[in-house]
């Protein structure tokens, strides 16, 4: 009787050790497989994908569509495989992973409360391991990722808004050059300079706009235009305009360089 009990205890201990090894194998395997599936490179031309951040992939598609439209190509509707990849990613990240993880936690709490002798290799362990790989992995990287994304987005907005302001200034300086050319060409009876820049003044609509303030220094056959950004007072552009409204000697302040 004693021998039988002792042998049963030894068998149980062996089984427990084997179960622990299997559980660790599953953990290591999941640790390798899940990230490799999630982080494999996605070819933006389409096809199935799985990503922990499907919105990043869809964001990439949005930019790609913008570039296509910019080059005159009409973007195509994403394939069913791409859509399923997107749906699959949401399901893994927000449904399957958390459900396995949280139900695993609940099962373990119930088992513990019942005072059962627990085997390592049990369903609730697998649930917690598999679900935890996804849920805890994402939880750990979610906050720094969100902060980095916000920073990148903010810098991008700032840079592009400055570039937009500079482009608007260049466009308006071109309009000033055309007005100057027109003035020089028109005869005096039509409000022109009859071959000269003398007497040209920037009207209110040309001297101050929502983008910049402009000044013009007239010389014999040239004019020097200077723009000072209204939105970014450190942003200035200076250029020389010739008799045919052609620009030369561009000078940009550091902000617009």
């Amino acid at each position, binding site marked *: 009787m004693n021998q039988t009990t002792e042998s049963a205890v030894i068998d149980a201990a062996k089984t427990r050790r084997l179960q622990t090894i299997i559980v660790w194998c599953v953990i290591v395997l999941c640790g390798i497989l899940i990230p490799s599936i999630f982080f494999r490179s996605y070819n933006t031309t389409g096809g199935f994908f799985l990503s922990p*951040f499907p*919105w*990043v992939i*869809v*964001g*990439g*598609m*949005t*930019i790609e*569509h*913008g*570039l296509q*439209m*910019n080059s*005159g190509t009409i973007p195509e*509707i*994403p394939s069913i495989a*791409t*859509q399923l990849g*997107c*749906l699959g990613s*949401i*399901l893994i990240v*927000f*449904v*399957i992973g*958390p*459900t*396995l993880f*949280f*139900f695993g*936690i*609940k099962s373990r*709490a119930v088992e513990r*409360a019942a005072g059962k002798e627990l085997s390592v290799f049990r369903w609730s362990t697998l*649930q917690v391991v598999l679900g935890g790989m996804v849920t805890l992995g994402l*939880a750990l990287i*979610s*906050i720094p990722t*969100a902060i980095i*994304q*916000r920073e990148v*987005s903010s810098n*991008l907005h700032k840079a*592009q808004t400055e570039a*937009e302001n500079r*482009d*608007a200034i*260049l*466009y308006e300086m*071109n*309009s000033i050059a*055309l007005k100057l*050319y*027109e003035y020089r*060409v*028109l005869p005096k009876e*039509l409000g*022109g300079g009859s071959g000269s820049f003398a007497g040209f003044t920037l009207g209110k609509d040309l001297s101050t706009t929502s983008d910049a303030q402009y000044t013009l220094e007239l010389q014999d056959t040239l004019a020097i235009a200077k723009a000072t950004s209204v939105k970014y007072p450190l942003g200035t552009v200076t250029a020389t305009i010739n008799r*045919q409204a052609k620009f030369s000697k561009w000078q940009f302040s550091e902000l617009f360089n």
Partner: protein
Amino acid sequence: MIFRWLFGGIILVSLAFFIPARSVDLWPSLNAGGIAALLFMIAMLGYILRAPIPISHRIVIGVATFLSVAALGAHWMGMLNTTQWQQNRLLSIKAAIVRGTMTSDAPIRLLSVLEDYYAQPKPKKRSLAKVFLQKYPEAKVGSNIYESSVGEDSMRVFVTTLSDSIVVLTGSHAYAKGRADDFVPYWGRKGALQERYILTEKGVRHESDN
């Protein structure tokens, strides 16, 4: 019980994902699926976070989940706003470049014609159209006078009116987007931008059609 929740969650999110009509833009589907997933997670946590899980564990799990979901949501929304803004910027930059190129090309051609017109000794004999044709002998109404300096270009500057007292050049682009999507341009895709430059004896007037 877990399988009911899994099955229910998958069905709910899948249905929500396919509610928006299939289009080029995947964001509506993704957002609908995301909202359904969020509702599912709230309901599931409400079910899970009960006894026998200790209260302290419930609080930790609840707070950690809230923070993670909030961060993921912020990342998601940030990506949506940034990429859509960038897409619009790409299109508006294209339009700005095309308008800039047109405005530094067509009006100068017309002002050059005006210069020659007024340079004639009095009394003037040649009309605006004649001076224009002297500079562009091949031009006629409907012809393109723009020559790209960078090879193939989708921009055109058409002569659309050519008379003694008025010359109109219409700048079009094959696909660069203008302000109104339903605008039918002189040339190019519906909704493409269009600028007009009108030369009279009084000077050059610019009208932005789209």
